[in-house]
């Protein structure tokens, strides 16, 4: 069968291309921390729909691969004493819950921990819907203030996702379908990370994304400098999925790659913008295979909002601390 005969050639070409891509990635100059933080903050990874961002992280970290649950994982060193460092990528978001005949859509929250404030923020804002044919811009409708004048607010409650209407400019459900948007298409706020002050970055999940950027750069350096990890040790660097949905990504690492002597969770957390905090974490009680768990948090001003703010100076300190930790220094 002609098609069957081509398969080995195609596979070989694919392997060659993949290998070449790996070498190119390894040789690509490191992006600067501010640039990478902004790039990652501009990405969307709604809980359960993180794989496009994982693709990007795999492309950024030479040697990284996707594991069984969809985490991006790279192993540094080959020793038996194992350490783990992870950064979660997931974020709150929504999915299309229903497509109305007139083209408007109603929503459902993506599962996981979700603050009411985060939910309320989408009212009257632009969103991006990730449909089967690519990203589609849309808006979440809001009442026109002119039409509310003198008409009172009786019967109107607080905004929630249950009162949200998604408008992508379609006039019918058929137009929605032609755009590749359907029930289960994930959506999140349209993201344009915003720099202000001397070194501040504001964006949804800015602190988490900036923390992940520091881990990307630390991992790239460790890959480039063979032998950074002390002899007899190995360090697994992972970008984990579904952190707010039972920690599925991290739990899978504990079970599939553990036991670890030590785990560091790199993330954002409420605090002064860019402040680096290190605290013991109780995750070990849930997954003993993680060993001693410490959370390294990059401080976020206005946490959980669309202008969550962190600082590049703080992130720079985190990157240096991570590089040192991977290299075995405490």
């Amino acid at each position, binding site marked *: 069968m002609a098609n069957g005969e081509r398969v080995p050639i195609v596979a070989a070409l694919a392997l060659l291309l993949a290998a070449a891509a790996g070498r190119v990635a390894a040789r690509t100059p490191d992006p600067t921390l501010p640039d990478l933080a902004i790039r990652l903050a501009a990405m969307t990874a709604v809980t359960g729909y993180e794989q496009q961002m994982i693709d990007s992280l795999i492309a950024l970290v030479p040697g990284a691969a996707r594991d069984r649950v969809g985490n991006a994982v790279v192993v540094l060193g080959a020793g038996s004493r194992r350490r783990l460092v992870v950064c979660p990528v997931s974020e709150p978001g929504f999915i299309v819950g229903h497509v109305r005949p007139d083209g408007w859509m109603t929503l459902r929250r993506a599962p996981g921990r979700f603050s009411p404030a985060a939910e309320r923020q989408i009212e009257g804002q632009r969103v991006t819907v990730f449909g089967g044919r690519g990203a589609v811009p849309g*808006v979440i409708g*809001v009442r026109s203030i002119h039409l509310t004048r003198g008409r009172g607010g009786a019967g109107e409650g607080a905004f929630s996702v249950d009162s949200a209407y998604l408008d*992508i400019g379609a006039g019918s459900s058929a137009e929605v379908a032609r755009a590749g948007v359907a029930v289960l298409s994930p959506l999140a706020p349209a993201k344009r990370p915003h720099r202000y002050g001397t070194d501040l970055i504001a964006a949804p999940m800015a602190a988490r994304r900036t923390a992940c950027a520091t881990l990307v750069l630390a991992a790239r350096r460790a890959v480039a400098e063979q032998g950074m990890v002390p002899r007899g040790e190995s360090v697994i660097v992972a970008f984990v999925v579904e952190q707010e949905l039972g920690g599925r990504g991290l739990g899978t690492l504990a079970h599939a790659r553990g036991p670890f002597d030590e785990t560091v969770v790199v993330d954002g957390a409420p605090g002064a913008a860019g402040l680096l905090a290190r605290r013991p974490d109780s995750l070990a009680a849930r997954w003993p295979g993680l060993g001693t768990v410490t959370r390294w948090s990059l401080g976020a001003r206005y946490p959980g909002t669309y202008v969550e703010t962190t600082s590049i100076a703080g992130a720079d300190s985190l990157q240096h601390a991570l590089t040192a930790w991977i290299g075995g220094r405490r």
Partner: protein
Amino acid sequence: VSGVRPGWGLVLIPAVLSAQQPTGLNDAERVLQPLVESYGVSGMEGPVRETVQRLLPRSARAQTDTAGNLWLTMGSGEPSVVFVAHLDEIGFKVTAIREDGTLETETMGGFFPSLWEGRPALVHTGGRTVPGVFLPRDTAATASPVTSEPVVRVDVGAANRAGVLAFGIRVGHTVTSPKQYVRLLGTRATGRSFDDRVGSAALVLAARRLESSRLGHTVIFIWSTREEIGLEGARAAAAALGLGPARVHAVDTFVSADSPLERTNFGLAPLGAGPVARALDNSSVTPPAMVDSLVSLARAAGIPLQVGATNGGNDGSAFAGWGVPDVPLGWPLRYSHSPVEVADLRDVAALAELVRVVAERW
């Protein structure tokens, strides 16, 4: 990585449709987009006025009056007919600079400030633009949208009042949020300040197509200032013209109930179904005979025209004291005065054509 991957921020489908759209829509979009992306809170309309001037034909001799209105007069002789669209947009003004480095603001125009909280901000100093953020506040437990607000504050990343002053920010400067013109599916588009950049675009497009020498009377286009805070620019223009004009056409938004969020008792003008004769609003009632004439004119020209009543005021009403009939021309807009106003380019193009036809034939 995602920044350059198709499907991650690149808007494929609307772009494809955009390439296939008729010339009239392309023209409308090429004029509308730069106007929407210019910033001009009431009283600081300079950047928008400059954009209008740049978009007008080179031969146009537009002039700015002491109120900041931009005037373009075409043709000559009686009667004089005025078309007015406003340059300004809603936003905030800095009212105080706190010792902690945050700015206090007040609203300029009517809108739900809660839609701006927790958003990126831009402080317009008249020279440079200083980025910051509107402070978020947990409004989850309050009615929606929030109408009665405490002071909305802005953080520009300064540690104290001196730091704010070092950025060049002073009381009286205006504040907006970053905005972008974005195509939705088909002929729809979204952005902020479509009200009244669509009207401003329609006047520019009409002015491009009119020939002064072929006009049998005087046509005056006015791009007005400070409409959102009380029709101030239009009042100055009306006082300057006095009893002269035979008619004024405010070219402004028709706030439409074309959304599942709205009651449809009135104001239901579907997007894409054409411009709207804004025959009644909170500031004016068009004489019924003039509505009939407008409908006949549009029908004869093959321009779809809706007729309706909505809420809000319009610049044409500022001419009422001089006995000038106001025949407002609108286009349907969803989510008015929000960060995500939505309009249909077919309506924009048809509105421009309606302005041209009214100027030439009525």
